[in-house]
């Protein structure tokens, strides 16, 4: 059913008229042109589609878009302030936590929510919190170090 949905997207009020059953991931990637959020499995198993909704990491691949009505959605495109990278983005680049880069947006968004909830997360908490984000290039060691470096600040 077509409905009008207003929400905050990367800090800006956004109104879309769409079938509310459509999944947030595909609305972001097609209608809204935000392709940083990726499809990986379609079943909440890999985390490539992770966005942050009201400070919580959420998988967007199975989430009906109507669920974001009135909420605040942040995608990877909304993390940097202009040219000023978010500390996590900087840390991922500097620690070599990026290889093919396809899982990276989901990783960073998941870590972002993790640190919002627990700014001084320990290594164990980081590993537990990142568990369901998959990286096939297997850069896990550097991803953990990158997140640790931000958590330690």
């Amino acid at each position, binding site marked *: 059913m077509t409905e009008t949905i207003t929400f905050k997207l990367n800090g800006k009020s956004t109104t879309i008229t769409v079938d509310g059953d*459509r*999944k947030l991931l*595909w609305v972001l*990637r*097609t209608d809204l*042109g*935000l*392709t*940083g*959020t*990726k*499809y*990986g*499995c*379609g*079943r909440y*198993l*890999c985390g*490539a589609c992770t966005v942050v909704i009201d400070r919580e990491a959420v998988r967007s691949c199975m989430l009906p878009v109507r669920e974001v009505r009135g909420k605040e959605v942040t*995608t*990877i*495109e909304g*993390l*940097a302030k202009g040219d000023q*990278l978010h500390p996590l*983005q*900087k840390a*991922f*680049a*500097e620690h*070599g936590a*990026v*290889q*093919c*880069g*396809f*899982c*990276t*947006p989901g990783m*960073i968004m998941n870590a972002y929510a993790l640190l919002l909830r627990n700014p001084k997360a320990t290594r164990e908490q980081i*590993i*537990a919190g*990142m*568990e*369901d*984000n*998959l*990286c*096939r*290039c*297997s*850069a*896990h*060691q*550097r*991803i*953990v170090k990158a997140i640790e470096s931000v958590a330690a600040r």
Partner: protein
Amino acid sequence: MGKTESSIAAKLDRRDFMKFVGGGLVIFFTVESPAEAAQGARPKGFGFGGPGGGAPPDVNAYLRIGEDGKITVFTGKIEQGQGNMTALAQMAADELDVPLESVHMIMGDTDLCPWDMGTFGSMSIRIFGPALRSAAAEARAVLLEMAAEQLKVDKGRLKIEKGVIYSGSDRQSRVTYAQLTKGQKITRKLEQKPAPKPVSQFTLIGQSPVRVDAIEKVTGKARFTGDLRFPGLMYAKVLRPPAHGATLKSADTSEADKYPGATVINQDGLIAVLHEDPEAAEKALDTIKAEFDVPESTLDENNIFEHLVKVAAKPQELERKGDLAAGEKASATLFEAEYLNGYGAHASIETHTAVAKMEGGKLTVWISTQTPFPAQQEIARTLGMQPDKVRVITPYVGGGFGGKSTGLQALEAARLAKITGKPVQVSYNRAEEFFYDSFRPAAIVRIKSGVDANGKMCLWDYHVYYAGSRAAEQFYDVPHNLMRTYGSWMGGGATKAHPFATGAWRAPGANINVFARESQIDIMAARLKVDPLEFRLKNCSDARMRRVLEAAAERFGYKPAVGPSGRGIGIACGIDAESYVAEIAEISVDKGNDIKVRRIVAAQDMGVAVNPTGAIMQMEGCIMMGLGYTLSEDIRFKGGKILTANFDDYSVPKFSNLPEIDAFLVRNDDLPPKGGGEPAIVPVGGAIANALFDAIGVRVFQMPLTPERIARAAKNA
């Protein structure tokens, strides 16, 4: 100087080509190596299909110093996460004495780049890199000559700093690359390789700058194939068979035809639904009622090995040394074992994706591929088009590992774009990705080995089915040695042995070969009651191997012990892509026979490391990915039906599996750069299997080393 041309450059339509590349100084170069030649010759008429036509036919790449002084390298190689975009740029920048930012890489575009067979085999730096450095050295020499003429000084007095050439110490007498190349249209073909810089003069090689693609990738700006958007772009979903080998009996598309906004294509066996919303395309596809004939098959992941041996091709003899009968006679103790490994998926997080767009008779196809040129060839052939009317462009690839060397999705996107005249995207969902993956083939290794009364190896009778010989070449000192290969990872031979497609998987065939060899070595050491490191060193005189073994042992703090010592420590080593690696794993095994890998130390000699951090990142990735094939990854199937459909039934390594990985380079500047993308994955299985034996005295001969297999082996022990 502007008039200078080599004989080959004179043959090209230089004006057209320079118009296309935009002037300046262009150096063409050819990669000459047996490895590259073995990849297959360039077919006539492919590569340079576009405005680039007119470049010499035998070049593999070229670099240009533009009229703005910026350097552009054009290569058919692609970036799939391994970091070659950065390391190749470093090599060019170092040789030309310019900052890294001055070098721009154009990769995997069949109109702009010359023919290249593909990105695999850890060859970008090892094979392509030296030619690139030579070309850069040639460009530097040409620029120095031009500068000498312009500044009216002897060439020997010139110094280059950041793309500016100075006359000795006179900072006023100077000319920039941009000033030299402005208005020039110079082409050169690299004929004689000028000597590139010696190691002592490296400025950028050996450094680890932040990857050139990192910022785009952390901001979501990096464009992968599925991120491309065009007006009128249609998302296509294709009807899939339930099993490999199934044939379509009937398809009723009447519901899909009525689906709002959907276009149904049913042509020559290709049934697809196109929609501007990818979810709607999928929904409409689901309404198609199709019937298939599915061939009966009882083959599954358990009985496949028996079948594979039965239908195996005749063996090829490789590596013959001495005489097996004499070796057996000399043996005081004989050892026989069989090693198995099932099918494995690449499981890149980016699924196979392609976007095709037809414009004025020319088809452009963006593909997540490791092989843009063979893809161009296949598309042209399938669509009956002239190759110069097909352009393949490779955006960033979201992981390949060998799996993106094939791609049905590109043919489908191309066909659908040609049929509809609209831009069309085909992107596999995860189930399609598992279904159409070219799996690492199931493989079998049988070894008969022997040691003499002095504990020296004297027999190595090696049989490998469906994995080929990679990393199986014997480096231990064995006087009587024969390797026989039955089919290879490239295919089961003429017998169609596998029920579905198989192909290259990171270090193809090498993982089972090294698992088998290194397990066999450990079995011999344990029987002789010799420490496994000592046994290896006693039987190996290869200096590079001894060095990495000793370096790994030192870093690990290795204390000799006869296995099983109860400590859970295992060693394995191997050679791949000309690099040497030794790994020591430390594990624990819980009551449920679950292996927890606590620590892996890895020492690698890869010659000169162009970007040491990048190389170590590849080693770490290899080790972590290697835990998957060793411990958990196994494709389940029934005949051509693939039962594994998503990450819940294919368990790839996750954060909680992360051991402490201490990967380091054993410096060897005497050798040019060797392979880095694959070598460190090859010893992982062997090291962990040996650590398992050391921990609980149980040997498992089939990977993955699952709790069930460990329990069974423990019961039989």
